[in-house]
């Protein structure tokens, strides 16, 4: 018992020292920002064979962190509930291909946009005469839950939206013939429909992107310090044209 008490006391002392030390040197020391990302959204963020989180967003944010002078710890988080986790303070920011929307802006703050993308429709190759979402009336179309893709499908009257936890499951369900379309961000659509060996022969992309959206870093409402930090880094990355290099590396 005594030993245990001593240990506990020692640990408390140690943590106290760490806390005081931490606050005293926070201004000088490198700031660490915890970022949540749903690494099921290739090629923007995904888990590679070595279990590392990689992708365009990840490289981009690493460059931002380098320019603005802070450190990043990534936290792989399921998309459904990723905003709730930010609200309850489980992490400092979300970088997970988050489109800046008015609804989200009401609840959270965003950095400046760091890339512009759009939604696009992917259908099985057998659906030759589908030209847009409206042609899929009376059919089921899939999207990841809580994404702008899902919101777009919902807008089209007569098309039945089916939401998935991960976009990969939606594509698998389309391969199984349960749904007749998937709407997601254009880079991700391209990854599944053009690059994946098992889907290449089965799917095709319909036309061009039909929305204009921008990704931003999502932070808690009122966290000006962090927004400015990210904005500073994003500005520098754009000025140095690092983003164009990353585009070539990760996107078509």
């Amino acid at each position, binding site marked *: 018992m005594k030993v245990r008490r001593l240990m506990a006391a020692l640990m408390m002392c140690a943590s106290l020292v760490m806390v005081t030390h931490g606050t005293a040197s926070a201004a000088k020391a490198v700031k660490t920002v915890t970022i949540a990302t749903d690494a099921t959204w290739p090629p923007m963020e995904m888990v590679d064979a070595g279990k590392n989180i990689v992708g365009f967003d990840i490289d981009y944010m690493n460059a931002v962190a380098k320019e603005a002078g802070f450190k990043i710890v990534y936290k792989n988080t399921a998309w*459904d*509930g990723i*905003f*709730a986790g930010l*609200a309850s303070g489980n992490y400092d920011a979300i970088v997970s291909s988050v489109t800046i929307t008015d*609804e*989200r802006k009401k*609840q959270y703050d965003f950095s400046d946009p760091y890339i512009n993308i759009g939604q696009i429709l992917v259908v099985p190759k057998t659906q030759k005469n589908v030209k847009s979402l409206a042609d899929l009336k009376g059919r089921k179309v*899939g999207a990841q*839950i*809580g994404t702008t893709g*899902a*919101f777009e499908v919902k807008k089209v009257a007569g098309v039945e939206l*089916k*939401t*998935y*936890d991960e976009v990969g*499951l*939606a594509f*698998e*369900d389309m*391969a*199984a*013939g*349960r749904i007749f379309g998937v709407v997601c961000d254009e880079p991700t659509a391209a990854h599944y429909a053009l690059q994946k060996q098992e889907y290449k022969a089965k799917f095709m992309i319909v036309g061009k992107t039909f929305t204009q959206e921008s990704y931003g870093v999502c932070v808690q409402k009122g966290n000006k310090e962090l927004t400015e930090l990210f904005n500073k880094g994003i500005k520098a990355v754009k000025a140095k044209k690092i983003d164009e290099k990353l585009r070539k590396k990760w996107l078509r």
Partner: protein
Amino acid sequence: MRLPAVPCRDKMKEENSKQPSLDVGDGAAIPTRSDRGLFTAWRIAFFGAIATLIYLAATRPDPYLNILKFIPDGILVTFKVTIGSILLALVIGLFTGLGRVARNKFINGAASLYVEVIRGIPLLVQLFYIYYALGRIIHVPDILSAIIAMAVCYGAYMGEIVRAGIQSIPNGQIEAALSLGMNRRQTMIHVVLPQAVKVILPPFGNEFIALLKDSSLVSILAVADLLRRGREFASESFTYFETYTVIALVYLIITLFFSKIIGIMEERASVNR
């Protein structure tokens, strides 16, 4: 614990005078006849949940009333999945249970293997596996695949209940039937199974309630059930706390309602004994 504590045969002989019964406590506590107080846990929970829902919807229509308006089709899907899978599981369970007591080595082995494999894999993993495996083999609608996946899992548990029920019938009954000139098949159909049904009924009711609750797992398969509808609402409005409060209360009301019905059915069945 999912499986009922089954009195084994030897013990049965000792307690032959007593009616065999299988007791499982998986569902909600239902007030029995002896427990006639007004404030039983069941009543407090059931009416409390309804009152809370009404209060929330009346005082804060945004978002509570909006949530309630959004989920009814999800409740319908939850019922569809639950009832569909319990019926299919019953059929699978009946055959599995009979297989488990069969003398034919091949049939017995196959039924035992099925039970062993299914009970060794978590339901969530099975759902994923069967849903996406089925997709590769045959084209069936999503709700049907979810029902099949749930039924394949619950069929194994149901099979064990059927087996336990059959084995709880005293040997003397079988011997008597055989000595009257019935063959084994007739004995099973006319003597053993009718008696086993009464023993099986209470744990069957429990399985139904358990399945109703577990049906929320099909929401991961993109089946638009009650939980999925709630998640869709929350993901768009960011009202996570409010939405899951409603979802939990609705599940509670449904579960308690069916517990009560099953409790009444069991009471009726035991009166007939």
